[in-house]
């Protein structure tokens, strides 16, 4: 340690929080190592936003799980437009809409959409793992799904249009969440009953921070299935549907699907 750095005696408290405490100081500034650590974390988060979406790789990984797939694009032609115009990211491109209308055989119980969102890194890393955890539950419940729709330059509300075209009772959209400095690859799950263009966020249920260091994939899948069962039974999602799946956990561990491994 540099003799010019004052260390903080409370470094042991870091065990209780992911916050960047006890960093020490060089004069009033951050020590060099801390500046570089921060820069690396920011670089990774920036890259997560701007890393091109590997649609082929994601499609292959999802097909390996036994799903069929269908590729679409939003109305945002590129990343820069996507970031400035969230409205474009919420709608299918004209050609994608036509193609999906031709391909959709509906109705289905659940439309599955994988959207790059603000972190393609999150989709590359988490989407196949989460779908692998979800699939046995879908099989057990006998829900029809149709192809997994893989969407580029897409935001959450794009799922409404996809679900509407597919005549789905509900749509589940997996999206790369806005990357945090300490969580560049976090997956979000949005469930919307009776998807229609124009739904608002108060009509969805969200499960956030799905990643190994956050909410584990199998636990996220369990919560999602709990919400989906309730949504299909009660005919709604959103603020009126509170997640009470925790009550079924035993010591924080969810039950497993009967067809695990299917």
């Amino acid at each position, binding site marked *: 340690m540099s003799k010019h750095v004052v260390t903080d005696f409370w470094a042991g408290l870091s065990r209780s929080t992911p916050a960047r405490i006890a960093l020490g100081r060089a004069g009033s500034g951050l020590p060099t190592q801390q500046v570089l650590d921060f820069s690396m974390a920011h670089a990774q988060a920036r890259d997560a936003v701007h890393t091109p979406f590997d649609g082929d790789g994601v499609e292959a990984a999802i097909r390996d799980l036994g799903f069929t797939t269908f590729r679409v694009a939003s109305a945002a032609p590129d990343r820069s437009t996507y970031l400035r115009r969230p409205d474009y990211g919420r709608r299918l491109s004209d050609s994608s809409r036509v193609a999906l209308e031709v391909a959709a055989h509906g109705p289905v119980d659940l439309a599955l959409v994988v959207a790059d969102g*603000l972190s393609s890194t999150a989709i590359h890393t988490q989407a196949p793992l989460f779908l692998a955890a979800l699939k046995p539950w879908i099989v057990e419940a006998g829900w029809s799904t149709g192809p997994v729709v893989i969407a580029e330059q897409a935001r959450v509300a794009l799922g409404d249009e996809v679900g509407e075209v597919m005549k789905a009772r509900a749509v589940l959209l997996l999206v790369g969440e806005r990357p945090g400095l300490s969580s560049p690859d976090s997956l979000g799950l949005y469930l919307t009953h009776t998807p229609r263009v124009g739904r608002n966020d108060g009509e969805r249920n969200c499960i956030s921070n799905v990643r190994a260091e956050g909410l584990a994939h199998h636990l996220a899948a369990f919560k999602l299935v709990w919400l989906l069962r309730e949504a299909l039974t009660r005919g709604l999602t959103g603020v009126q549907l509170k997640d009470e799946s925790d009550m079924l956990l035993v010591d924080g561990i969810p039950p497993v699907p009967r067809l695990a491994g299917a």
Partner: protein
Amino acid sequence: MTYRHDVGTRRWVFADLRELMAKATPPRSGDMLAGIAAGSAEENVAAKICLADVPLKRFLTEVLIPYETDEVTRLIIDTHDAVAFAPISHMTVGDFRNFLLSDAATPSVLAKLAPGITPEMAAAVSKLMRNQDLILIAKKCPVVTKFRNTIGLPGTLAVRLQPNHPTDDPAGVAASILDGLLYGCGDAVIGLNPASDSLPVLSDLLKLLDGIIERFEIPTQACVLTHVTTSIELINRGVPIDLVFQSVAGTEAANQSFGVNLAVLQEGMEAARSLKRGTIGDNVMYFETGQGSALSANAHHGVDQQTCEARAYAVCRPFEPLLVNTVVGFIGPEYLYDGKQIIRAGLEDHFCGKLMGLPLGCDVCYTNHAEADQDDMDTLLTLLATAGLTYVMGIPGADDVMLNYQSTSFHDSLYIRDLLGLKRAPEFEAWLQRMNITGADGRILNHDASHALLGMMPHLAA
């Protein structure tokens, strides 16, 4: 009425004051998203030229959002102080800028004017200003507020200690509080954004903060930033609440999307004041705002986002807040695209708030999908501190691990104090010295594990 300006053979026409204001605004992505921004650089400047000739009085008769349908407009018009306004009532927007820069506009003159300045007047004159104008004039508008300490005195800068934790873990929150206090931060407020909205969790967090403040006799205040109606409910249950928090915006419809209106804010203020927990003052409200919130709620009525933001300060004003915070870069690049837009917006917000007599602080911040980085935050922090900013955020390492954005750190506050000689709130400064956290010069002392504050969490010490 229409406004027009000729440039050579080209005539620029603006249908009404609302359009003129939007077209005169410095470029930003949110106004482009709303489809109301100037279509060219020349149109932008032509609008500024027209705006400079608009009499200030016009803003009292040509409202941007209808009086009949918007309670914020009614608040602005009905509570306008004509006596305070009288000295500037003959001026145009352009002349108002000249006056504000002149030696005649002393701090005491400006303080008397504040109740006569509507948010639209403040926004309009800001649109004609360069950054240096926004800085210099704001510096002439100190605003002092009090609860358990004195915030906003000239030559001081306070810091909100923001000890957020992704799961509200009490030990984790306490660890960040300890870190911040030992870095000399927390005079504005120890203010936690909870991950949860469950009443028992919020109640425990409030008791944790209150317990720390009481045990170490810290001359500061606590806040858990939850919805105003939740705070009222907690007060009814006997939970210790110093400050009542609420996010507000500049239109009735946007506030509706936040689940609030003027009446419920009044109720929140009265509930907090009924507890009489302030020792030297009763400024009990803490508001947060930010450009783009009205558009985000689809409630902007075609008004540009900077004017909507200034109207949010009009919403804050009757409730005599201790702190108002523009969370300038939090909302994302679709509203403020890059560091340049964030910096400009931060300076505008601070200027408009101070001119209107409010204790404006700034969450100097950005998200990872904006074209900005910590260098931009250094720039904005430095500019705002020279402009007399009331307070900034202090977050461990500038990384908020709950809200997933970057702001300013405890270290940043030490930097700006070193650079500009800024002090803390005097009561808090004295406490830091009593606790041997800082020396007589306000600089951080080297500590060891025997420090009394570690009594906060002995079981977790290294």
